[in-house]
């Protein structure tokens, strides 16, 4: 038994330790040095990199933006995905086509999405061109105005990732035995009553898992922001995320020691959020099923 567990879990554990645990400790080590990445780190600076990060307004702005993106993603994508999944769970004409159309953006690479939207949303780009043709006189700075940019980013994120949420919800819905809704219908329940009192409660575990994945995705968000706003101006436009801040002030500034310190702080924030979610939200579903508590 022990040998079997070792054989099955061993490779995964080795990869996890080598590529996740070890880098965390390496980053922890480099975070105490002023190190530009050339040769060994020798200039020990103690907690200076941590102090620099925690007293930097741009860092806290990036934390705020990340938090905002996480919350807004849940608020926008959750209800929309559930509604779309309920719709697509019906037998209707063109269902496969609609499913494909909703899922396609999720499959397209972030680089393509980023470049495409950044071209279309320029001040002199296609979107404003279309609006002008429709009679809108005003030129909207979709990606450069700090008041608008975060909402533009939310729109792109929602468009890009809604397909994944819908597929998860659909899978969840299809796992619910049909007999339940049939029985309810025979007892006289309306369509909405069935969705509200049978489907939704049974879909809750799926929703919770999706929300967890969405939270993790929000905390890791980097590529779309980096591609659309480039190396320098996301902070100015109000769309910088924690990962973007780390790349900008670590690698781009050539201060890898500082970047490592930022990575550790971001790691701690993500760990707290993940453990908190698992402890207070996810655990209630798995209690009894996966644990020995009951």
């Amino acid at each position, binding site marked *: 038994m022990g040998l079997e567990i070792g054989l099955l879990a061993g490779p995964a554990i080795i990869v996890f330790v080598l590529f996740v645990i070890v880098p965390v400790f390496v980053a922890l080590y480099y975070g105490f040095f002023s190190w530009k990445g*050339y040769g060994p780190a020798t200039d020990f600076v103690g907690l200076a990199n941590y102090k620099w990060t925690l007293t930097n307004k741009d860092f806290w702005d990036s934390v705020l933006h990340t938090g905002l993106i996480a919350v807004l993603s849940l608020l926008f994508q959750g209800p929309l995905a559930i509604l779309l999944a309920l719709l697509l769970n019906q037998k209707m004409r063109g269902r496969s086509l609609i499913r494909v159309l909703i899922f396609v953006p999720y499959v397209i690479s972030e680089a393509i999405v980023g470049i495409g939207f950044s071209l279309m949303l*320029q001040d002199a780009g296609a979107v404003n061109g279309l609006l002008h043709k429709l009679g809108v006189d005003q030129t909207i700075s979709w990606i450069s105005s700090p008041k608008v940019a975060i909402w533009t980013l939310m729109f792109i994120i929602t468009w890009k990732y809604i397909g994944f949420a819908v597929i998860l919800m659909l899978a969840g819905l299809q796992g619910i035995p049909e007999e339940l809704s049939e029985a309810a219908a025979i007892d006289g329940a309306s369509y909405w009553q069935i969705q509200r009192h049978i489907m939704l409660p049974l879909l809750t575990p799926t929703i919770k898992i999706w929300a967890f994945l969405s939270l993790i995705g929000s905390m890791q968000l980097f590529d779309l922001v980096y591609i659309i706003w480039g190396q*320098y*101006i996301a902070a100015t436009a109000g769309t910088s995320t924690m990962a973007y801040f780390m790349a900008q002030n670590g690698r781009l*500034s*050539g201060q890898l020691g500082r970047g490592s310190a930022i990575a550790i702080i971001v790691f701690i924030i993500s760990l707290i959020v993940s453990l908190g979610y698992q402890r207070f939200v996810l655990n209630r579903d798995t209690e009894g099923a996966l644990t020995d508590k009951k």
Partner: protein
Amino acid sequence: MRSSLKTVAVSAVIAMAMSGLAACSTPTGTESSNAPGTDAQSTAAPAAVTMTFWHNGTGDKSLAYWDQVIKDFTAKYPNVTITPQAVQNEDFDGKLQAAMQANTTPDIFLQRGGGKMADMVKGGQVMDITDVVSAATKTAYGEGVFAAYTTGGKIYGMPAALTPEGIFYSKDLFDQAGITATPTDIASLNAAVDKLKAAGIAPISLGAKDAWPAAHWYYQFSLRECSQAVVDAFIAGSTDLSDPCWKKAVQDVADLNATNPWNQGFLTTSAQTGAGSSAGLLANHQASMELMGAWEPGVLGGLTEDQEIPADLQLFPFPAVAGGQGDPSAMMAGLDGYSCKKDAPQACVDFLNFLAEKPQQEGYATAYGSLPASKDATGAVTEPSLKSLLTGFQNAKYVVLWFDTSLGQDAGNGLNQAIVNLLAGQMTVDQTMAAIQSAVKSV
């Protein structure tokens, strides 16, 4: 023309630029007896050598130039194989840094000099070529040109092009707007902006997405507002920005910004990528001016439909500011050059010396549309805007290295970012000044 190339000015000021990093004079009379020179090959059959080479010449002309240079070089040194790779300019520094961390540094690579190079040297990544630069090269260049590639009294890079800066403009669009004389001071620049706007033309294109093009406006205003002594002290490493000229320059940028002279959406416009970039707008007559270095004609040539430099492209020097302490003829410039990695084969040095020869220097100036570092090759400069730039360079009382290059990556980025925030209306003049001061102090 060629004999009067102002290497003395480069020497005087870029040398001072480097003096904060190191003693700045190029050693004299130290030509090594085994300097490879042009014909210094061993007669014994040499072992096969393979080298990797990274440059930023992504345009058709520069790609063709490097193919030809490598072909000519390997014809002369048949045992050598060089694998070139063109890396987009904005991606270059990050990619090179990552390669150095991963110990996959290319044998030959583009070198910008200044604080950025000093960091690489400190990390033991660059070959000291002090004693192997051929005597012929040293004579053709003049010692001053090497100053930007000198740190700790040693030379680490071979200059290839000088890139002084001015305002490039479209003569056709100026004519269309009824502008008869090029601006010489800020008042006439503002007047030109008004006329262009009235004619429905975007006055100045700005690629603020890449930050440095925006910051160059601040560099230039500082050069005009501050005295030579103050600028020299700054370049030499002084972090004291208490002289009021530094803040005046921020105010100048803010005042110019208030006239809204830029292309629409300048904040998300990149500098050189595609027809929608700031360079692309000027190249295709969608904007009429751009503040840029000597690489501009070459970049523009890659962004037009016919792949030619616009025929009406001309240049005027950065305008004077009223009451400025700086000399109105002073210029800001950078250098393009090439370095060998620390443990590169001898053939790398041979390649650098080969690059410095007159035919290769002339080809470089033509392919990149820039000014050659070698005095021998200035005859290759024929493009009208570059000829004006060359004249300005020859008449400049002093020349200063880009602030971000001399400050190094971290502080340079901080400074550039502060100016972008000012232009975006995210910071006031005082906040911008504070951000610049804090970035400079972090060096």
